[in-house]
């Protein structure tokens, strides 16, 4: 893309309400992960005050049944969630893109081999593998968890991207690019990938959401990070210690709402991006 096209894209991106709203929400939470820790003096698992307190000026999001500050856990957990989403979802997307593009563009034998590989990974019971690996590791951090998730979540992304690439590859503008002497990777990066930008972003968003949810599941069955806090772990603890029965909504609503808001906002962003990337939708 040259400068002119890029600046036009930016212009339309700025004019798009969905994109602005979606991005604002995401950026709000990102900002919160950075600013949040500055607003609290506690560590997430410190016993700081009276137990099971509803939100108050002193404890913004209230306290847990053990008297830990929910806000502190929330902002720390938010950071962990973004890490898992970005690293796990990013890795899943990256592997999906790499394998999907190669299989879809090359076709033939390469495609068949990659297809078999994809199907094998797809049918392996992901959770079981994660359970086994997680059980072997004494200390588990956010990074290890993310890499596990990324390495097992890519197959459906690869399949979807392969199908898209396959249909784009037969389009005549790709033939024309080949007749212009462009090499394979340049064609993929400058002809095929831009047409799939919003699609790739959707893949990333779903991988992001999926990674966050798998992380929450792992956290829930006690195989989450042993040395950190996450939104999933918070909800898990809340449910485990009867926050639902006791009506301690401040313990589980903020993490739940945050996950929903982040994934939802990314989805709205995606719809907006779709309009920006497609010149036909722009003029409406």
């Amino acid at each position, binding site marked *: 893309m040259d400068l002119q096209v890029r600046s036009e894209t930016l212009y339309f991106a700025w004019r798009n309400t969905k994109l602005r709203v979606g991005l604002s929400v995401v950026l709000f939470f990102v900002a919160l992960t950075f600013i949040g820790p500055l607003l609290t003096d506690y560590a997430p698992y410190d016993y700081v005050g009276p137990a099971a307190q509803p939100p108050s000026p002193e404890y913004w999001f209230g306290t847990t049944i053990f008297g830990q500050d929910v806000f502190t856990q929330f902002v720390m957990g938010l950071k962990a969630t973004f890490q898992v989403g970005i690293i796990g979802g990013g890795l899943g997307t990256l592997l999906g893109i790499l394998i999907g593009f190669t299989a879809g563009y090359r076709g033939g034998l390469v495609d068949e081999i990659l297809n078999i590989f994809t199907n094998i990974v797809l049918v392996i019971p992901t959770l079981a593998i994660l359970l086994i690996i997680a059980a072997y590791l004494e200390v588990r951090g956010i990074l290890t968890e993310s890499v596990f998730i990324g390495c097992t979540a890519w197959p459906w992304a690869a399949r979807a991207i392969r199908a898209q690439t396959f249909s784009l590859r037969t389009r*005549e*503008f790709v*033939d024309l690019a080949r*007749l212009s*002497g*462009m090499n394979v990777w340049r064609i993929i990066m400058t*002809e095929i990938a*831009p047409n799939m930008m919003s699609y790739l972003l959707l893949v990333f968003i779903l991988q992001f959401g999926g990674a966050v949810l798998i992380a929450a599941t792992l956290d829930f069955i006690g195989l989450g990070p042993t040395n950190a806090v996450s939104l999933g772990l918070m909800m898990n603890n809340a449910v485990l210690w009867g926050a639902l029965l006791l009506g301690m909504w401040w313990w589980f609503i903020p993490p739940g709402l945050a996950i929903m808001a982040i994934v939802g906002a990314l989805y709205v962003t995606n719809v907006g991006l779709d309009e920006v990337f497609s*010149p*036909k939708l722009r003029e409406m």
Partner: protein
Amino acid sequence: MLELEAVSKVYRVGTFGGKELRAVHRVSFDVQDGEVVSLIGESGSGKSTIGKMILRLIPISTGRILFNGVDISTLKGVALKAYYRKVQGVFQDPFSSYNPIFKADRVFRILQQEYFPELSRSEWQDRVENALRAVGLNPDQVLDKFPHQLSGGQLQRFLIARALLLGIQFLVADEIISMLDASTRIDVLNLLADLKAEGLSILFITHDLSLGYYISERAVILYRGCIVEMGLTDKIYNHPLHPYTRMLMVSVPRLDRKWKEGEVQLRGQQSELAGGCVYYDRCPEADKDGSCRSHEPVLVEVEPGHFVACKLYPGA
């Protein structure tokens, strides 16, 4: 200039590629310098496949394609890029030929990046504008626009201008005007004829017999991947020899003559090819003893410059 020697294309289909689908079967013909050859066939006859094989967009299964004596299947990297400086293609759907998210004139910029990086921006711009004028477009009206803001005819001219910028010798024109409106398509056709007069060789792929007649010296009639008849356009159109070509000639709707009734056999389900003549199922002249079914006819020169592959003619 361009020569096809017994070119075939076989696709493997079905589970584990167990079945073979014959798209093109032992096709041989040539295109001379400054000549327009029409490749005429119905949908599924393999005509576009031949065009794509010449452009190296799909590999050939067997046979050879020679360009100025060089086997093009051996070309790689720099040599292939050099081949594309001399041989280019324009395709049927003008809108699908452009990446919808970029402006249409990006096709020129890519060309500069790949082939003319040494030229300055303004030098290149001059060349682009000259090429656009050469194909009958006003640069001010068509540059800096998205594909959907231009008409099909303008987009096809764009691609012809793109080919001109490379100074090509050979153009594969695959149904390039079939999606254009009647009132503008003739201008694109005339443009091709003008370029031909300047020395360009063209393979004009079409299903429309009248277009083939209008522009070409020689025609190749394709049916189910095989050449059934080829030769000088006048001879083929005025004295079609193969039963298939004759059927085509009586079915083509013309403004100077009405259809005669009952000259066309309705086509039923096509049977599998069993090695005989490809037209056996539909042919009113097919031998009852079945020799057409078992024996594959070869092209013979029935009169100077007129070849046909049918048992009705001795030697085939």
